[in-house]
C-alpha cells in the first residue's frame, strides 16, 4: 500500500551521518519522492508516526552480483541451493523484494562485461523497487589493453567513455588486471605479480591499474576505478594488495572485497595461511584517496561468481566442486562455482576473521562499505548478522568461540574491543557507500535527497532489528512493512 505523495515521518530517532544527526528526534518531510525542508505550512503533509523508531536512509549496496550471465550461471549450477529460502542466488524478482524488505533501496552489480550489458539491463529491468546500476569490466578488452600499452591516455579515455555509454554503466571496474591475458595464455594456479608484462602486450598489471585510474578520474565518472586486484584468494596475496594500494599514489581508487586479498602465508601453503590485514590497514588508514568494501564471508552455503576466471579455476581445482567458466571473445570471462563456508574449516575461519579485522581496524567508516560481495562471501540477507558482529562484542566473542581453534588463537580479533555504534552502522551501510559510489541524492536524509528511508524498531538483538524494518520507503512510496513487500514500483537505472 503506497502513501500520499506528501507526508511527514513524525518524531523518529534520526541517524543521518551526512547531516550530523546522531540519534536526534526529528521529523522527515517528503514530497514527490524527495526529502524536503520543513514547509512553512504543514497542511497536506499527513503524519506517519515514527516515534520510538530508528530512522535511517535506505541502504546502498555498493558491491553485489544480482544480474547478468554469471548470475544466471550461479542460479543453474547449484539447484539444491535454489530450494533454500532465500535461494542462494534468488530470481531477479525475489531479489528486489528481499533487498527492500531488508531496508535496502539501491544496488550495484559490480562486474558486467560490456558484451553482456544489454542482457544484464534486460534482467535488471525486472528488478523491482531498487534503483540499480552496473560497473563495466574494463582492461579485459583488446582495444583498451592496446591503448593502455601504448600509454595513449586520450584513446583510453575515449574507449572507456564509449564503453560506459554503450553499456549504460555507472562505473568502471578492473577484475584481476591483466589476469585474462595470463589466463587465456596458459597460466594456472600460481601468483602473478604486478610488474610482469602481459604475455601478449608490453604493459604490466600495475600500469593497467594506474593508467585506468587516471583515465577514470579524467572522465569525471562519479565512482573512482573499482579495483579487484590480482591473486584473489591465494595465500600471501596481501603483498599484491599492498602493492596495489601503493600504485595509486594519491589517485582515487576503490578496493573491492579486500577480505579476499588480505592473506598471509607462502605460495599455496595452507599451514602458514593467516591474516595480512595489519600492514594493509595501516596503509589504508593513512591514505584518504582509497576506499574499500570488505566482502565479508559468513558461514553457510553459497555460490561464488567472479569475472576473475583464474581465481574461480583455482578454487574449483582445489575443491573439485562443479565449475562453470566462459571466455568472452576479445574480453575477459567469468567463473562460477558453489561453495560452503564452514566454521571449523581453517581457511574459512581465517577468511571470516580477516573480514571482521578489516571492519574493526579501519579507522574511518566513511571510507568503508559493508558488503559480503553477495553471493560470494554470503547472501545479502545476512547483512544484519554482520552488523551485529560489528556492533556487539559479546555476540562476536560467542561466534569466535565456535570457529577453528587455531584461528581463534592467532587472529587479533579476540583482542579487539571496538563496537560499531548505530551511527557507524548507518555510515557503512548507507552514507559511505552512497558517497563512495558518487550518489549525491542517496545515503542521507537532507533536503534534495531521494526519499529512500528505512524505519527500524530498536532492539538489543541488532540482527533482529536490522532484519525486519518496520517500514521501508523508496522514493517516498511505502514498499515494505515488517518484512512484507507492499508494492513493487519500478526503480531507476543509474547511469553515469
Amino acid at each position, binding site marked *: 500500500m503506497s502513501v500520499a505523495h506528501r507526508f511527514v515521518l513524525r518524531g523518529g530517532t534520526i541517524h543521518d551521518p551526512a547531516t550530523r544527526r546522531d540519534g536526534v528526534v526529528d521529523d522527515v518531510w517528503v514530497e514527490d519522492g524527495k526529502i524536503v525542508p520543513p514547509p512553512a505550512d504543514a497542511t497536506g503533509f499527513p503524519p506517519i508516526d515514527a516515534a520510538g523508531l530508528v530512522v535511517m536512509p535506505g541502504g546502498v549496496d555498493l558491491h553485489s552480483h544480482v544480474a547478468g550471465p554469471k548470475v544466471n550461471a550461479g542460479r543453474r549450477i547449484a539447484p539444491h541451493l535454489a530450494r533454500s529460502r532465500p535461494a542462494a542466488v534468488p*530470481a531477479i524478482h525475489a531479489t528486489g523484494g528481499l533487498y527492500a524488505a531488508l531496508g535496502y533501496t539501491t544496488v550495484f552489480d559490480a562486474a558486467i562485461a560490456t558484451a553482456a550489458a544489454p542482457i544484464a539491463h534486460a534482467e535488471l529491468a525486472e528488478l523491482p523497487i531498487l534503483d540499480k546500476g552496473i560497473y563495466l569490466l574494463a582492461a579485459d578488452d583488446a582495444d583498451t589493453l592496446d591503448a593502455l600499452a601504448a600509454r595513449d591516455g586520450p584513446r583510453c579515455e575515449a574507449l572507456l567513455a564509449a564503453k560506459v555509454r554503450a553499456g549504460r554503466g555507472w562505473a568502471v571496474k578492473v577484475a584481476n588486471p591483466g589476469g585474462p591475458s595470463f589466463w587465456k595464455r596458459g597460466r594456472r594456479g600460481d601468483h602473478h605479480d604486478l610488474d610482469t608484462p602481459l604475455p601478449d602486450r608490453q604493459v604490466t598489471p600495475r600500469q593497467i591499474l594506474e593508467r585506468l585510474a587516471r583515465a577514470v578520474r579524467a572522465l569525471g565518472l562519479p565512482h573512482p576505478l573499482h579495483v579487484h586486484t590480482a591473486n584473489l584468494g591465494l595465500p600471501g596475496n596481501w603483498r599484491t594488495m599492498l602493492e596495489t594500494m601503493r600504485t595509486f599514489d594519491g589517485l582515487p581508487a576503490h578496493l573491492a572485497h579486500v577480505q579476499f586479498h588480505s592473506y598471509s602465508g607462502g605460495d599455496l601453503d595452507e599451514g602458514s595461511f593467516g591474516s595480512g590485514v595489519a600492514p594493509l590497514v595501516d596503509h589504508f588508514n593513512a591514505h584518504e584517496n582509497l576506499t574499500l568494501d570488505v566482502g565479508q564471508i559468513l558461514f553457510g552455503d553459497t555460490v561464488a561468481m567472479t569475472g576473475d576466471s583464474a581465481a574461480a579455476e583455482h578454487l574449483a581445482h582445489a575443491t573439485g566442486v562443479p565449475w562453470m567458466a566462459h571466455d568472452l571473445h576479445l574480453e575477459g570471462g567469468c567463473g562460477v562455482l558453489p561453495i560452503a563456508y564452514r566454521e571449523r574449516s581453517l581457511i574459512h575461519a581465517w577468511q571470516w576473521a580477516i573480514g571482521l579485522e578489516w571492519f574493526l581496524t579501519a579507522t574511518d567508516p566513511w571510507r568503508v562499505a559493508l558488503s559480503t560481495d553477495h553471493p560470494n562471501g554470503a547472501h545479502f540477507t545476512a547483512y544484519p548478522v554482520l552488523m551485529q558482529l560489528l556492533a556487539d562484542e559479546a555476540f562476536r566473542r560467542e561466534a569466535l568461540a565456535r570457529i577453528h581453534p587455531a584461528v581463534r588463537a592467532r587472529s587479533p580479533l579476540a583482542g579487539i574491543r571496538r563496537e560499531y555504534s548505530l551511527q557507524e552502522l548507518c555510515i557503512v551501510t548507507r552514507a559511505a557507500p552512497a558517497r563512495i559510489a558518487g550518489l549525491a541524492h542517496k545515503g542521507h536524509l537532507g533536503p534534495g535527497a531521494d526519499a529512500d528511508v528505512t524505519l527500524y524498531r530498536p532492539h538489543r538483538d541488532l540482527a533482529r532489528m536490522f532484519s525486519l524494518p518496520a517500514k521501508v520507503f523508496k522514493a517516498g512510496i511505502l514498499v515494505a512493512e515488517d518484512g512484507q513487500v507492499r508494492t513493487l514500483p519500478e526503480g531507476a537505472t543509474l547511469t553515469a
Partner: protein
Amino acid sequence: MTPRPAPPAAAPASDAARLVAARRVLVTGLAGASVDAARAACDLAATLGAAVDFGAADVDRPAGPTIARAGAVTADPAEMHDRADLVILWGCDPAATHPALAALVPARAAVVRMPPGGATSIDAARLLHHLVCVGPEPEADAPWIRACRAAREAIERASCVAVVTATNADPVGLEPWAVTHLVRAIAHRKPAFEISLDGSDLAAAEAVCTWRHGASGAIARADRDGGRFLPGEASARRLLERREVDCVLAVGRLATAVEDAIARCGDDLEVLRVAAEPAALRSLLAALDRRPPGAAP
C-alpha cells in the same frame, strides 16, 4: 468523448478460454525468440501457473543436468578461431551441420575426431580423461585405445584446446558429464573449453527463464519468485509422455523432441500455437487478464 477500448481479437479470447479450461498447461517453444517474447511467454506461464520448458537437451535427463554435477567450461566460438591450436570434434561434424561455426576452426589447428570407431563416447571420454590426468597406461590394446593415446599426445602438444560437442541422445546424461569432466581436466592444465552446438537458438528463452524461475527449463510451476527445477520430471518431453499436461502453449518454433512428443499424444492434448512475437503473446495475456475471476471457460 473517450474512445472505448477495442475488444480483444477473437483468437486470443478463445485461446485464453481454452488455457483457463485446461487442467495443467505447458509453455514451450521459443526457438530463436527474442528476450521480449520470452518475457511475455514467461508472464503467460506465471499467470496460468503453468510448467515451463523449452526442450533444451540439458534439462531432459533423469540423471540430472551436467551443469549441476560438473559445471561447464565454455567460450565464445570466436575464441576457438583466435586461440585454439587443437580442435577436437566430439561426436559431431560442424562442416555438415553448422558451417558458420566450422569456418571458425582455425587453419593452423590440428583437428582430432572423437570418439574413435569401436568405442562409445563415454568410454572414450573417460579413458582420455584418465590419460590426461596422467593415470597409468591401460594394459589392453585396441584401435580405439591407441586413438585415445594419440589424442592425449595431441592435447599435450597443444597450447589451447577447443572441444566441439553436439546434442546426443544419451538418456541418462553420462555422456555430456564424461565429456565435460574431460574438458575441465584439460582446462585445469592449460587453456581449454567446450564449444557446444546445442541450443544456441534457445539462448534468450533460457536466460529469461533462469532469471525469472531459477533454471533454464524443467520448471514444474512458473512463479516469479523462483521455481522448482525438476530435470527428468518437468521437462517438456516427459510431461507430455506422462500425460501430465493436457494443454500445450506452443510459442513459435518447438524443439524437435517436443514436437515428436506432441505428435505421440494424439487428440488427448490441446495444442495452442502462437507466434513468438511479443505483441501476439501480450494480446493473449491481456485476454487472460480480462476474464472475470472464476469465469467459466
